[in-house]
């Protein structure tokens, strides 16, 4: 692939301004493109003189007809299928309809058959599984080998997993073994049905821009997806009581692979030494506090609101750095990225790093004294006011309405 600047370049510098990668310099009144260039084409669009052209290598036609179906990695924690995996099953079904193909659930767990019915209810057309043995937790090293061999045997055209800490560590290793592409942390997946291409959209540059990425010449097309981006709709029960009705191709057993796996990792112990056990992504509602909360004690106010809404407490970096609340609550670029249904920002000004962690929430309510606080730009509802007046009054109203 090549990018060329033609003779008619005037050196006007428009391309310079739009290049996000500092790949263009003006030398002797002409644009010169350096090795920072990722061929995104922003300069080509910006040039008013049509002086920049990207020429691709001859696109080879690959035959991917062996690859069929959409694979979903089913993650188990504490004896349950993760919500993020179920969200992906629903999304996979949607994508599968467009591709007129099937959804395959990939699962490895102790007592693995106890999950089959639920996967069936979530419209799995086929389950690719391995039994890890009762009481044994499979380690990441072994799991990635197992999944790699499952995928290379089953050959799904698309393979997706939640962007959980497990997913974000396993998927790159698998993609690398299979020499295929992987897009991390997607917030949108769609299909180009003619080309059978998965369009993978993800935030980049600290969430400031979105990039759509494709894997054109390799299979499977792999992506991790942020938890809570897709809805976990209530499902219709499949009505299948006996899985045998699904036919003998419904289940594929890979348990044998595990027997021969050697691992270089050993789990010594697991500790739950957070002050509070919290995973913000488990909650639909997050009430979050920033510098405006003013102190550790005042978080009780937010907690009260969060409790009646069945939500969790989040915080900006300012509040965590002031030690008003612990790190697992921090939301933003150096903390957690969350996608709740409702995000209530209290006394948070909305630095770009904070916005990066929460702006994909479904609904955002911001309460801040400063009418110019940047948080209002991403909010659906902006309340210019004092959180110490607004929140108690709100709590009171909710309680009254409830009783």
């Amino acid at each position: 692939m090549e990018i060329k600047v033609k003779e008619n370049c005037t050196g006007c510098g428009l391309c310079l301004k739009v290049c996000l990668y500092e790949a263009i310099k003006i030398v002797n009144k002409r644009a010169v493109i350096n090795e920072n260039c990722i061929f995104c084409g922003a300069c080509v669009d910006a040039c008013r003189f049509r002086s920049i052209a990207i020429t691709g290598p001859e696109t080879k036609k690959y035959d991917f007809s062996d690859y069929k179906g959409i694979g979903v990695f089913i993650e188990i924690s504490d004896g349950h299928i993760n919500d993020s995996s179920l969200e992906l099953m629903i999304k996979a079904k949607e994508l599968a309809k467009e591709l007129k193909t099937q959804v395959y659930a990939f699962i490895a767990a102790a007592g693995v058959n106890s999950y089959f019915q639920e996967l069936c209810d979530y419209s799995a057309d086929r389950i690719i599984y391995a039994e890890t043995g009762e009481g044994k937790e499979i380690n990441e090293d072994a799991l990635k080998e197992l999944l790699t061999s499952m995928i290379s045997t089953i050959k799904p055209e698309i393979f997706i997993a939640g962007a959980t800490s497990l997913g974000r560590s396993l998927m790159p290793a698998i993609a690398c073994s299979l020499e295929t592409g992987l897009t991390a942390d997607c917030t949108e997946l769609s299909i180009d049905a003619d080309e059978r291409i998965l369009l993978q959209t993800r935030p980049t540059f600290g969430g400031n821009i979105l990039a759509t990425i494709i894997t054109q010449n390799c299979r499977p097309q792999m992506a991790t997806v942020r938890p809570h981006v897709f809805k976990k709709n209530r499902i219709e029960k499949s009505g299948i009581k006996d899985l045998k009705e699904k036919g003998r191709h419904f289940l594929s057993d890979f348990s044998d692979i595990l027997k021969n796996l050697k691992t270089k990792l050993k789990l010594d112990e697991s500790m739950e030494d957070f002050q509070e056990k919290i995973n913000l992504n488990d909650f639909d509602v997050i009430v979050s506090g920033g510098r405006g909360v003013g102190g550790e004690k005042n978080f009780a106010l937010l907690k009260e609101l969060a409790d009646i809404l069945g939500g969790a407490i989040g915080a900006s970096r300012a509040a965590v750095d002031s030690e008003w609340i612990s790190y697992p609550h921090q939301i933003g670029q150096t903390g957690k990225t969350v996608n709740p249904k409702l995000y209530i920002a209290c006394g948070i000004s909305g630095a770009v790093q904070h916005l990066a962690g929460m702006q994909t929430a479904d609904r955002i309510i911001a309460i801040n004294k400063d009418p110019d606080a940047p948080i209002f730009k991403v909010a659906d509802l902006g309340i210019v006011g004092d959180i110490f007046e607004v929140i108690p009054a709100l709590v009171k109203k909710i309680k009254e309405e409830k009783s």
Partner: protein
Amino acid sequence: MKFKIMVCIKQVPSSTEIKIDPVTNTLMREGAENIINPFDVYAIEEGVRIRERLADIPELETETVAVTMGPPQSEKILREAISLGADKAVLLSDRSFAGSDTLATSRVLSAAAKKISDVKIIICGKQSMDGDTGQVGPEVAQLLGFPFIGYVSEVRSLDNKKILLKQLKEKKYDIIEAQLPVVISVLKEINNPRIPGLKNMMKAKNASIETWGIKELMIDASKVGLDGSATRVVKIFKHEINSNTKMISSDLKAQIDEIYKEIFTYDKN
């Protein structure tokens, strides 16, 4: 016995703020300078600390090497890595690396690890500030056949054969023992990076930094850069931020009613 610690760092813009050009309606990056990816500073510090901790093992020759893949000007961050305590640095730069995705980047970095030789621990930051993928660490590990342990918050103990690590999981920490060599990615909470001393600053200024390209690394040009990348960016666009904020500036009662409506009407959908 040689024991090398390789630290992978990346040059990123100091600000990820993006504006829209009001005339052309295209994206513009603010004229910001380039810095070491903030998460990688913790990786450098940990690389230096690990070398220091191994100092009392006899006949072990240790060295911490900072490595970056990028354009020639990324030499600047390598000098900074030396000022932060790295013993030496190598720049991986070649026109044909341009446009590499994480897979192609990992091929270059793993080739560098092989050329450096005797690398026992590779340390990466959690993720980069601009790309945010966090994929390069696990991919380098896979290409080299090393285990990968991500989100490490503490190196409990280590010797020249194994390492005991505290790893952050979704709701807990795991203590993992791994046989060396390994690749790890570290969290911000792992250490407090030191301030460069005068001696290291001088060393950084005078260090000679080698540049390795496809020839030195003996990699096939078709496996790196845009041609060697499995993924391709087809569109870049500004995050549509909600500009229809409904603002309510006065009357507490109206504000409360509005919030109530927002919370509970939506809830029923």
